[in-house]
C-alpha cells in the first residue's frame, strides 16, 4: 500500500507507531502528484513537487502532526501565492496566515504550499472559471470535478492530497465532493473562523474539510473549529471532539427526507442511489420519513441575490491601488479602475458583480435584497421546524453526477441549478456533509447530503460514519478512479 493512498487517520496511526515519517508521507504524496497532475490539474502553479509550509513552533505531536493538508487558493497563507484563481490577484502573497492555517500549524499539520484550483473567487460549480484553466474529474477526465472547490476534491479523489480545505458558499465543498466521490463537510456558519478566507459572500461562506472518509472529516474539523476573536461572526461555543461520536449507534435517529428535493430535474440514477441509501439507514435502525421544506423553490433566486450583492461589495477592494494586478496604462483614476477590473476579472466574476450591484442599487434594494433577506428567514424557519422533530435531513447533494467540461459554460442558469440542493444549508447557516452513496452506470460517483441543526455536526458525522461503515462491506466502496 502506497502512503499517498491512505487516509489521514491511518497515516497518523502509522506515524504514532513510528513506522513512517512525515517526510516519507510528503515525498510519497509529491511523487503521486507529479505523476497525475498532468491529467487532473488539481493544483495551481504546480512545479513538479509538493512542499510544506514552514511550521514555526508547531508541535511534533499535534493531532495532525505530519499529515499533509492541501489548501484552496482563497485561503491566505503567509508569503505564499493566494490568488483565488483570478488574474486580478496574480502574484498576490498575503502578509498573514488565515486563522485556519494558524490552527493547522498548531495541530502540527504539513500544510502544502501549492494551492488547489477553484472557480475564480469561488464563483462557479465546475472549476472551469479558473484563470489557470479547469481541473479534471479523476473518475473521468472528460468531466468536471465540480466546484468551486474542485481542485481540493479532485486532489483528494486522485490521492494527490490526504486532507484538503475547501470553502462553501452555496455548495462549493459538497458538490465537488459528490462529483469526485469524496467526503465534504460544510460546518455551521460561525463554527470555523473566516479570518483569512477571501470573502465571496460573507454571510454564507464557511471553510470546511474535504477528505477521503468521514473519520478524516471529523479529524480535520477538530483542528480548524473554534471561536476566533478576529472574526465577529465566529461563535463562542465549545468544540467537542468530533471523532468521539463516530461509531455511536444511529438506531432511533429520526431522518427527514424533503419531498421538495426529489422532484423534477433530478437524474434518475441519483434518485435511485439516494433511495438505496435510505434503505440502508433503515437497516441501521434509523427512522426515515418525508418532510417538507416549503420554501425550497426560492433558495436559488434568494441565494443569487444575497450572494452576488455581498460579492459585489467584497470584490470592490480589488481596484489595482494597493496589491494584485493593475492595468498596464491608464489615464486617471477612473480609467485605471475600469481597465484594471475589466482586465483582471473573468466573465463570471463580472456577471456576479453586475448582478449584485444592481440588486443593491437605489430603488431596487427593497424589491431584491431586502425581499431576499426575508425569504432567507423563511427558509431558515423551514429547517428549524423540521429539526424540531428530526435529527437530520437527508437529500441528494447535486441533481446530477459530474457533467462534461464545457457542457454548462454557455448557460449560467443551468450551472447555477447544479447547487439547487446545497444552497439552502448556507442560507440557513446549518452544517451539511456530502458523502459517496454509489455510482452511476457510467461509473461516476453519486453523493448524498446529510444536514442537521446549528452546531449539530456530531449528528451528521455519526450518521455519515454509520452509513460509510455499512457500505464498506460492498464492492462499490473499494472502487478507485483509474488514472
Amino acid at each position, binding site marked *: 500500500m502506497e502512503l499517498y493512498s491512505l487516509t489521514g487517520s491511518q497515516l497518523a496511526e502509522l506515524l504514532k507507531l513510528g513506522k513512517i515519517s512525515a517526510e516519507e508521507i510528503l515525498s510519497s504524496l509529491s511523487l503521486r502528484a507529479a505523476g497525475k497532475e498532468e491529467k487532473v490539474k488539481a493544483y495551481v502553479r504546480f512545479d513538479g513537487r509538493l512542499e510544506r509550509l514552514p511550521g514555526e513552533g508547531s508541535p511534533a505531536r499535534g493531532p495532525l502532526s505530519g499529515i499533509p493538508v492541501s489548501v484552496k487558493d482563497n485561503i491566505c497563507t503567509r508569503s505564499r501565492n493566494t490568488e483565488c484563481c483570478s488574474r486580478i490577484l496574480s502574484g498576490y502573497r498575503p502578509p498573514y496566515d488565515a486563522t485556519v492555517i494558524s490552527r493547522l500549524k498548531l495541530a502540527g499539520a504539513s500544510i502544502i504550499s501549492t494551492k488547489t484550483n477553484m472557480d475564480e473567487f469561488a464563483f462557479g460549480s465546475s472549476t472551469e472559471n479558473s484563470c489557470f484553466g479547469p481541473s479534471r474529474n479523476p473518475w473521468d477526465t472528460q468531466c468536471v470535478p465540480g466546484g468551486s472547490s474542485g481542485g481540493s476534491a479532485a486532489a483528494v479523489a486522485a490521492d494527490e492530497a490526504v486532507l484538503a480545505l475547501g470553502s462553501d458558499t452555496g455548495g462549493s465543498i459538497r458538490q465537488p465532493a459528490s462529483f469526485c466521490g469524496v467526503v465534504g463537510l460544510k460546518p455551521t456558519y460561525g463554527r470555523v473562523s473566516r479570518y483569512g478566507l477571501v470573502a465571496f459572500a460573507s454571510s454564507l461562506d464557511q471553510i470546511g474539510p474535504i477528505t477521503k472518509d468521514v473519520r478524516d472529516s471529523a479529524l480535520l474539523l477538530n483542528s480548524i473549529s473554534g471561536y476566533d476573536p478576529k472574526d465577529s461572526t465566529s461563535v463562542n461555543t465549545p468544540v467537542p471532539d468530533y471523532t468521539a461520536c463516530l461509531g455511536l449507534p444511529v438506531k432511533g435517529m429520526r431522518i427527514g427526507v424533503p419531498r421538495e428535493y426529489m422532484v423534477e430535474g433530478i437524474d434518475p440514477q441519483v434518485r435511485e442511489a439516494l433511495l438505496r441509501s435510505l434503505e440502508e439507514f433503515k437497516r441501521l435502525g434509523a427512522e426515515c420519513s418525508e418532510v417538507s421544506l416549503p420554501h425550497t423553490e426560492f433558495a436559488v433566486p434568494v441565494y443569487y441575490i444575497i450572494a452576488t450583492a455581498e460579492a*459585489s*461589495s467584497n470584490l470592490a*477592494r480589488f481596484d489595482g491601488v494597493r496589491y494584485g494586478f493593475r492595468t498596464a496604462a491608464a489615464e486617471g483614476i477612473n480609467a485605471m479602475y475600469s481597465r484594471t477590473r475589466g482586465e483582471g476579472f473573468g466573465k463570471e466574476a463580472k456577471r456576479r458583480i453586475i448582478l449584485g450591484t444592481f440588486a443593491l442599487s437605489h430603488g431596487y*434594494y427593497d424589491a431584491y435584497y431586502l425581499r431576499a433577506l426575508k425569504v432567507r428567514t423563511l427558509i431558515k424557519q423551514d429547517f428549524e421546524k423540521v429539526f424540531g422533530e428530526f435529527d437530520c435531513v437527508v437529500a441528494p447533494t447535486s441533481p446530477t453526477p459530474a457533467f462534461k467540461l464545457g457542457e454548462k459554460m454557455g448557460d449560467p442558469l443551468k450551472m447555477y441549478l447544479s447547487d439547487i440542493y446545497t444552497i439552502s444549508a448556507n442560507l440557513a447557516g446549518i452544517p451539511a456533509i456530502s458523502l459517496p452513496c454509489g455510482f452511476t452506470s457510467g461509473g461516476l460517483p453519486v453523493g448524498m447530503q446529510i444536514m442537521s441543526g446549528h452546531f449539530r455536526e456530531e449528528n451528521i458525522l455519526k450518521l455519515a460514519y454509520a452509513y460509510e461503515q455499512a457500505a464498506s462491506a460492498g464492492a462499490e466502496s473499494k472502487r478507485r478512479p483509474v488514472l
Partner: protein
Amino acid sequence: MEYEAVIGLEVHVQLNTSTKAFCACRAEFGVEPNTNICPVCLGLPGALPVLNKVVLSHALKVGLALGCSIQNRTKFDRKNYFYPDLPKGYQISQFDLPVALEGEVRIDTPAGEKCVRVKRVHMEEDAGKLMHDAEGSLVDLNRAGVPLLEIVTEPDMNAPDEAYAYLTKLKSVIEYLDVSDCDMEKGSLRCDANVSLRTKGESRLGTKAELKNMNSFKAVKDALLYEIGRQAEILDGGGKVAQETRLWDARQAKTFSMRSKEEAHDYRYFPDPDLTLFLITNEEIEEARAGIPELPQQKAARFMREFGISAYDSGILTADKRDAAFAEECIKVFPSGDKKPVVNYLIGPLLAEANSRGCGLSGLKLPAERLLELVSLVQKNVISNLVSKTVLKEMIDRQVTAEEIVKSRDLAQISDTSALDGIIARVIAENDKSVQDFRSGKENAVMFLVGQVMRMSSGKANPKVVQELLKRRLTDA
C-alpha cells in the same frame, strides 16, 4: 423678496480612542505614513473587522449627552464607493439603525434660547489620506479605520450665527466628554452644511445645496452667508436653485459646484455581513450615563447657583472644560463672599489676554493664587486696573508674581494727592479747551483730563483720586 434660510449640519467627530475602530492599530497622528496599518485597515483580502468596544461606549456617551434615545439594536452597514483612500471599496458606517436618535442642542440666539434637534448619531470609520505631488498621488492609510461619530441635525437653524452657536455648543459638550480633541484644523472635527432658502412664512423646504470643505467654524459661517446670498440672487432673478454639492473656497470666499444631484453617488448601503447586530442592554446604557461628567450647561447652572454669577458670565466661563476648571478654582479660592471682582477679572482682562494669545484661560498657565494676588492688588488700589493688565502680561511671560513686578518696576498706584498735584496743575494749564468745556457744563470733558493725568503718570495715578482732585480744582477756581 424676503427669504428665510434653513440650515442643517452634519458634523464628523474623530474619537480619541487609542486604537482604530475595527482593528488593533494605533490611532495616533503625525507618524510616518503607512506605519499604523494592518491587514484589516489595509482592506487586505480575507481580513475582517472587529468593533473596538470603546467606540461604542464613546458613542453612547455622546448620544446620551445630546439627550438622544440610545437604540437597543444597532448595526453597521457598508457604504460602497470607489476612491483610492478607501481600501475596501466601502466604508463601514451606520445607515438605518444608528446608535442614537433624536436629541437636541440648546443654543443662544438674539431672540432667546433655541433648540436645535439632533436627528441621529452614528459610528463609522475614517478613510485614508491622499497626498498629491508632481509625480502623482500617494496614499497614507494611517487614518483609515480611525473611528468617527457623525452627528446630524434637523434643518432647525435659520442663520449662519445659529450654525456657529450650534457648533460651539456641540464642541463644548464633546470636549467635556473627553471623547475627541475636536480640533478642526487637524481634521478631528469636520462639518458639512445643508442650506436652502424659502419665502418667509412658507413651510415647504426649498432646494438645498450641500456645502463642504469648511475648515473652521468661521468658515462654516462665511460659507453659509455666501451661499444664502447666492441662492437669494438666483431666486430673485426668477431662477431655480440646483440641488448639488458645493465646495467652499476660503481664498476666494466663494462656493463652487462639485457635483449635481444626477452625479450623486448611489452608495448601495446594505448591512455589513462581517459585523453582527449589536444589542445594547439598558445596563450598558446606564453604565455609559454614569460615566458622563458634569456638562457645560449643568456646570453653568451650578456656577450661577453657587457663586451668584450671571447666566452670561457663567456661560462664558464654562464653555471650555479646562477653562471652567481653572475659573472654578480661582473663584473658590477667592477669599470673599462676593465673587464679582474675580469673575469680572476672569472674563475681562484675563480672557482678553487669552484671546490675544490665541489660547484659553487655562492655556495662560497662570496659577490661581497668583491671579488672586493680582486681583487683590487692584482691589486694594495698590495698582490700577490699567496697570494690572501690563503686570498680567509680564506675570505670564516671566512666570513671576504680581508683587515682584509691582515692586521691581515701581508700579504702585499713586493715590497721594500731594504727589498728584503737580501733574494735575500741568494738565489743567495745558488743556485749556477741555477746561472750558467742563466749566460750560460738559461733565464728560473731565474724562479727557483724567486720561492726560494717567498718561503723564505712566498709568500709575489712581484714576478715581485724579477725577476727584480734578473736579475739585476746576470748580474751586
